[in-house]
């Protein structure tokens, strides 16, 4: 079982496993192809040895490298040996999947699970994709890593650079949330604030990528980077006892995470790792903010491409007006019977509060978007009460504190029992 080559998602032209991301023939995106024939070839008994493959995964480290067989590294997990993979760099993954009965009850649903990817080293799912991209960058001999970021990726690239002793350049919109700027600069990266939107940052970095011998994790390393998102699907399936959920609600910025989660489910289903492999893929519901909803708009209008927009939303980590994987996200939502919905900034704040107050998980604005879309789907009657739903929470609330400022009151009293009794006691449940 091994990574095989890069392949154009549009015209299927094959390329070597180098720092390439665009098909020279049709400009389509390149993605990683694998040769799993060692596992799917039937054994002498005529059945796939699924048990052995599951044991191989379960015997791996408590991080994404337990899924190294499905990731695009030529040399296997990074580190002196596979057993030591968990001690190299900033191991990501193996985040909690929590059953959220109080959230489900509030929404009139029966079974909702929250995949809390804020529990990664830099508190977002980006550590998964960066771990994979940086490991591949090192295999390819790069000395410097870089990225165009809306914030979470900035944190992760800067931290991974520090952990591995690599130089890093991080490009962000100059008006990013202060917490995300501080949580990037602290790692000693070369931090560049660009006067413009994320799409301006991305355009600049795409041009710069041709001029510098750097590994831009989400540009020239993008095929490898994107594969890291599959580990979210693998974990969800493993944590559910090798089963798939009926539905996943996932935030959409570029659409890469959304499509790669489904790709992970599909890959494992094809390998027979999933119980009941004849069952369909989960319904995939994408979540966007109304202030930046090019994919949701295209979905609603029945288009198969997205018209770019100028973002204006508090959900800055999702503020990509020109989503690279938009067409594939649309296709996926339609093929699985899902949808792509958008919610207002007010609904995003309510979503953050709903998740916090029913699960104890404090998410950033992107998680507010996802939670609010789940609430919207439930209210609309799209979800059968018997469905098993997974809500993918990608980032940490401490990174976007402004979103909750003023959303609750604090009692300030003199340090006396009398003051407590007169000013607070009546307002709380005893």
């Amino acid at each position: 079982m091994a990574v095989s080559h890069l392949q154009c998602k549009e015209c299927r032209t094959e390329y070597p496993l180098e720092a390439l991301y665009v098909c020279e023939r049709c400009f389509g995106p390149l993605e990683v192809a694998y040769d799993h024939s060692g596992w799917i070839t039937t054994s002498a008994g005529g059945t796939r040895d699924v048990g052995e493959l599951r044991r191989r995964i379960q015997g791996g480290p408590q991080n994404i490298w337990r899924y190294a067989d499905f990731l695009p590294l030529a040399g296997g997990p990074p580190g002196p040996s596979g057993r030591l993979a968990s001690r190299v760099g900033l191991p990501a993954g193996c985040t909690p999947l929590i059953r959220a009965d109080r959230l489900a009850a509030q929404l009139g649903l029966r079974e909702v699970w929250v995949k809390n990817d804020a529990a990664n080293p830099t508190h977002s799912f980006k550590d998964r994709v960066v771990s994979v991209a940086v490991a591949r960058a090192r295999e390819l001999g790069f000395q410097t890593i870089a990225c165009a970021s809306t914030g979470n990726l900035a944190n992760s690239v800067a931290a991974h650079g520090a952990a591995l002793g690599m130089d890093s350049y991080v490009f962000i919109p100059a008006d990013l949330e202060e917490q995300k700027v501080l949580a990037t600069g602290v790692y000693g990266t070369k931090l560049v604030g660009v006067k413009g939107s994320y799409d301006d940052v991305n355009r600049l970095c795409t041009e710069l990528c041709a001029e510098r011998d750097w590994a831009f994790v989400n540009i020239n390393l993008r095929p490898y980077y994107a594969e890291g998102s599959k580990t979210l699907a693998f974990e969800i399936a493993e944590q559910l006892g090798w089963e798939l959920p009926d539905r996943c609600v996932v935030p959409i910025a570029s659409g890469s995470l959304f499509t790669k989660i489904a790709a992970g489910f599909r890959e494992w289903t094809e390998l027979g790792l999933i119980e009941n492999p004849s069952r369909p893929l989960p319904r995939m519901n994408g979540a966007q903010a109304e202030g930046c909803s090019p994919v949701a708009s295209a979905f609603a209008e029945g288009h198969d491409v997205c018209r770019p927009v100028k973002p204006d939303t508090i959900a800055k980590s999702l503020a990509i007006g020109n989503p690279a994987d938009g067409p594939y996200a649309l296709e996926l939502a339609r093929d699985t019977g899902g949808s792509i919905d958008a919610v207002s900034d007010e609904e995003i704040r309510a979503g953050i509060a709903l998740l916090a107050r029913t699960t104890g998980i404090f998410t950033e604005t992107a998680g507010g978007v996802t939670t609010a879309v789940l609430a919207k789907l439930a209210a609309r009657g799209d979800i059968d009460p018997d469905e098993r739903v997974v809500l993918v929470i990608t980032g940490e609330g401490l990174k976007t504190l402004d979103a909750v400022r003023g959303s609750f009151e604090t009692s300030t009293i003199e340090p006396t029992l009398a003051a407590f009794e007169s000013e607070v006691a009546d307002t709380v449940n005893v």
Partner: protein
Amino acid sequence: MTVVVKIPTQLRAAAGGEAETQIDGAATVREVLDGLFDRHAELRVRIADDDGALRRFVNVYLAGEDIRFLDGLATPVADGAELTILPAVAGGC
């Protein structure tokens, strides 16, 4: 009227190795691209479809602005303007 066209690395082999080129006498983005295709015929099939529209994974920027926020291929170009062709498949999460 001269427009500078910046060519992405992925297309340079089809453009005689040029990283940028100048197109004279074009009044719109479409005319700039037609001038480019006249010079390097192979570029046409790489970035335009059979109807002459841009392929969906091609982005074109005039002075840094995506032409889809302007008038698309009909956007007028000024003398000395810079037109940048880039892959759409970059960035994001």
